[in-house]
C-alpha cells in the first residue's frame, strides 16, 4: 500500500489511473491531513520546478567547436582521401598496363623479326643485335616473371587485408 505522500506525488505528477485520481481528489477535499500534505507537496513541487540551470563558461561552445575542428584537421591524409579516387587511379593503371601487354604480346610475332629499322649510325659504333636479345623465349620469361610478381603482390595484399577485416 502506498503512503499518503507517495499517493499525493502520483496525483501531482498525473501518474494515477482516472479512478485513483478521483479518489485522491475526494480525499484532499474531505481529509484535512491529506489536504495539508497536498498543499505542502504542491509548494515543494513548485519549488523544485523553479530550480535554475547552471551556466557553463562563455567560451564553452567555442571550445567544443575548436576541439571538433582540430580533430577533423588532425585526421590522417590516408583517412581523408576518398578511396574511390585511389581505386579509380589503380584501375586506370592496371587497364593501361594490361592493354599495353596484350597489344605487345599480339604484335610480338610479326615485329620480332622486324627489328631491321634503318637508322644512320656511325660505322664506329656497333649495336647489339636486338633480335637476338628480345627473342620470343625471352619475352615469354619476362611475362612469366610479371605474372609471378603480380601473384606474389596480390597474395601479400590480401594477407594484409584479412587481419584488418577481422580486427
Amino acid at each position, binding site marked *: 500500500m502506498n503512503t499518503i505522500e507517495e499517493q499525493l506525488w502520483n496525483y501531482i505528477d498525473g501518474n494515477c489511473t482516472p479512478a485513483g485520481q478521483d479518489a485522491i481528489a475526494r480525499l484532499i477535499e474531505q481529509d484535512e491531513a491529506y489536504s495539508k500534505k497536498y498543499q505542502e507537496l504542491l509548494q515543494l513541487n513548485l519549488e523544485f520546478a523553479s530550480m535554475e540551470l*547552471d551556466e557553463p563558461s562563455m567560451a564553452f561552445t567555442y571550445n567544443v567547436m575548436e576541439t571538433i575542428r582540430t580533430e577533423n584537421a588532425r585526421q590522417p591524409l590516408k583517412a581523408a582521401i576518398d578511396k574511390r579516387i585511389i581505386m579509380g587511379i589503380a584501375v586506370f593503371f592496371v587497364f593501361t598496363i594490361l592493354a599495353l601487354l596484350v597489344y605487345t604480346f599480339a604484335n610480338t610475332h610479326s615485329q620480332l623479326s622486324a627489328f631491321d629499322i634503318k637508322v644512320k649510325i656511325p660505322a664506329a659504333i656497333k649495336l647489339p643485335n636486338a633480335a637476338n636479345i628480345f627473342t620470343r623465349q625471352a619475352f615469354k620469361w619476362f611475362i612469366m616473371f610479371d605474372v609471378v610478381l603480380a601473384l606474389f603482390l596480390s597474395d601479400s595484399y590480401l594477407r594484409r587485408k584479412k587481419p584488418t577485416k577481422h580486427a
Partner: protein
Amino acid sequence: MQSKLSDIDLIEQILAGNQQAYADLVKRHQRFVFTLALRFSKNREDAEEIAQDCFIKAYRALASYGGQSKFSTWLYTIVYNTAMTFLRKKRVATDSIDDEATFIQVENNESAYDAHNVENKSRSFYLNRAIAQLLPDDATIITLFYKGEQSLEEIAQTLGMEANTVKVKLFRARQRLKDKLERNLKHEVKELI
C-alpha cells in the same frame, strides 16, 4: 531563422556538412548538459570537462542517432555514461554529505518546510545547495524530471532502468531533497537566532 529549427533539422544540416549547425545545437543544450555534469562532479571545472567531452562524443556518434528517441534523451544518455565513467576514474566520493562532520543535524525533524523564515537568501540558493548534497543519481533524476522535460519512460531510457524503478527513485529523491532543504533552512534559522 536558425534558432527555430528543431534538433532533427539541425542534425540533418550537420550530417550534410554544415558544422556551424552543431554550434547551435551545443548552445541549445549546453546549460542542461553542464548542470547534469555538475550533479556528478560537484565542481565547475570537471563539469565543464565532462560536458565538453559529451558534446564531442555526441558529434562523433551523430550519424548513428536514428531519431527513435528525442535527441535530448539520446544526449543525456551520453552525459550519464560519461559522468559515471568520470566518477569511476576520479573515484570521487559519492556519499551523501549526511555523513560529513561539517553538516549540522537539527534535532527536531518534524516541523514543516518553511522557507519564509529565512528572507535574506534566495530560495534557489538553498535549493541548489540541497541538490548538491544529494547523491548523483538522486540529483540527476530530479534534474531530468523537472528541467529536462523528460517523462519517466525517457528518464528510464537515459539511466538504463525500468520506468517503475525510476518512479520509486524519484519519490525517494524528492523525499531526500525535502529533508536536505528543511535541514539547511533550520540550520540557517538557528544561526540567525
